[in-house]
């Protein structure tokens, strides 16, 4: 069962996974090479870290994009068939959902492993100033966790009906409107800021995406 689901999911999302894997492998290498160009001697360590940090912003973006696109690709054929085929299969719905989730997650292991390989290669081949160390494994683990979180969130959202997606977007829109109206009225509601703090701050559900993503650090 899992094998055929994995195969169909590969067929639907192979382009996304392939591009994500190539990007995941290239990103650490390119970031270290780009940062090395900015720091030719030990005195420029600050410039090196700043460059690594600026490249680091791309890791959560890549993780979220992969999670989003693979989640959409996972559910798209079922949505097209109005879930009739899936509902006529002789297995409990929760099991079907878990199988689909697991298949998508298995495919996302490729870009996560690519980040690990790229990060190991980049740190091994880079000449680092004294006091600077490479953190390829922790960066790759963090990337993998971010991919899992992003995929899980978008998998849950896209598993619902258009009405569900509309309700979620409606709530977000309402919060933004309340925030704007509060700003115009001079009331310091800062709804969006507070929500951002709850969602993206530690231990918020999307906290893994925020903060510094450093392949090289002190």
């Amino acid at each position, binding site marked *: *069962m899992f*094998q*055929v689901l994995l*195969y*169909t999911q590969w*067929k*639907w999302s192979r382009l996304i996974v392939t591009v994500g894997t190539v990007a995941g492998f290239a990103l650490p290498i390119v970031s270290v090479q780009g940062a090395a160009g900015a720091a030719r001697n030990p005195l420029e360590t600050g410039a090196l870290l700043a460059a690594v940090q600026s490249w680091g912003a791309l890791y959560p973006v890549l993780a979220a994009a992969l999670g989003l696109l693979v989640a959409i690709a996972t559910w798209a*054929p079922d949505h*097209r*068939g*109005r879930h*009739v*085929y899936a*509902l*006529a*299969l*002789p*297995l*409990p719905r929760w099991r079907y959902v878990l199988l689909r989730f697991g298949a998508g997650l298995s495919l996302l292991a490729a870009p996560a492993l690519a980040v690990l390989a790229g990060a190991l290669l980049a740190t091994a081949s880079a000449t680092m100033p004294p006091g600077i160390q490479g953190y390829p494994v922790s960066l790759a683990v963090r990337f993998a966790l971010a991919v899992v979180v992003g995929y899980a969130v978008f998998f849950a959202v896209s598993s619902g009906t258009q009405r569900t997606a509309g309700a979620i977007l409606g709530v977000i829109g309402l919060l933004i409107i309340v925030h704007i109206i509060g700003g115009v009225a001079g009331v310091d509601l800062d709804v969006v800021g507070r929500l951002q703090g709850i969602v993206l701050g530690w231990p918020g559900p999307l906290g893994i995406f925020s903060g510094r993503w450093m392949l090289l650090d002190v």
Partner: protein
Amino acid sequence: MTHAVAIQHLHYRAGKRFAIPDLTLTVPTGAIYGFLGPNGSGKTTTIRLMLGMLRPAGGTITVLGHGVPNDVPRALARIGYVPEQPHVDPTLTIDETMRFHAAFFSTWDWPWARQLAATFALDGGQPFGRLSKGEKGKLLMLLALAQRPELLVLDEPTEGLDPVVRRDLLAAIIEYVSQREATVFISSHLIHELERFCDWVAVMDDGRLAAEVPMERFKNSVKRLRIANPPRTPGDTPFVLLARESTNGRAETWIVRDWAPAMAAYFERTGSSLDDIIDLDLEEAFVEVLRAFRARNR
């Protein structure tokens, strides 16, 4: 008699406009059960309720001995289903679709699947999305049959197909039923098609069951009677009077159900005379049953 499907006092509501208020129907094991009804009468909704795709508001559904929706996976393992609209992923080829489907059904019969693919002239490398309507219909039937189901649930399986494809599909169903003694639940509004091979017929209208009888009885018991000097009020009739139309002042045409020749005595008793008894074909019978049902429920 055991029942492949037993629905008792089923209640379901979809929005404000459509409801199944209280549906009771039984499909005998081994029967080919034709489920007739106009578009929007609730045939597909009833099928989806039977297969656990929709959750009823009340009543009980038992399919092959399994309660639905609670025990639906075990029931679905023994059911072959052909939906009204193609539901298969259009990007998968025929071979991939078969492999995918086979993985979920332990009873899947590969040799027979290949034989059916050859009979239906299906090219395994073709993506589902590029198949003609007839080829899609054939593949869906192949998927349903090759899993060797005890119950085939077919929702308008031949809708929009040309006569040759229709004949191929119906032949495949008949062959399967004769081999396996499976039960078939087939919904359609192509009445002549069902007339040839169903042994039970149910008529659905606006979420209600207008009739559920063996096909022979349905065909033979609905008659058009020409009556001279009919009684003003029919009173207690031994048959079900579906409709009466006045042809002129002294003659009427009655459409009756559950007719038997011995019932002619009723007209002698009421001082009228039965001039002619005309057989109706299934389509005429269906229309009259539906018309009478609507008149009663107006």
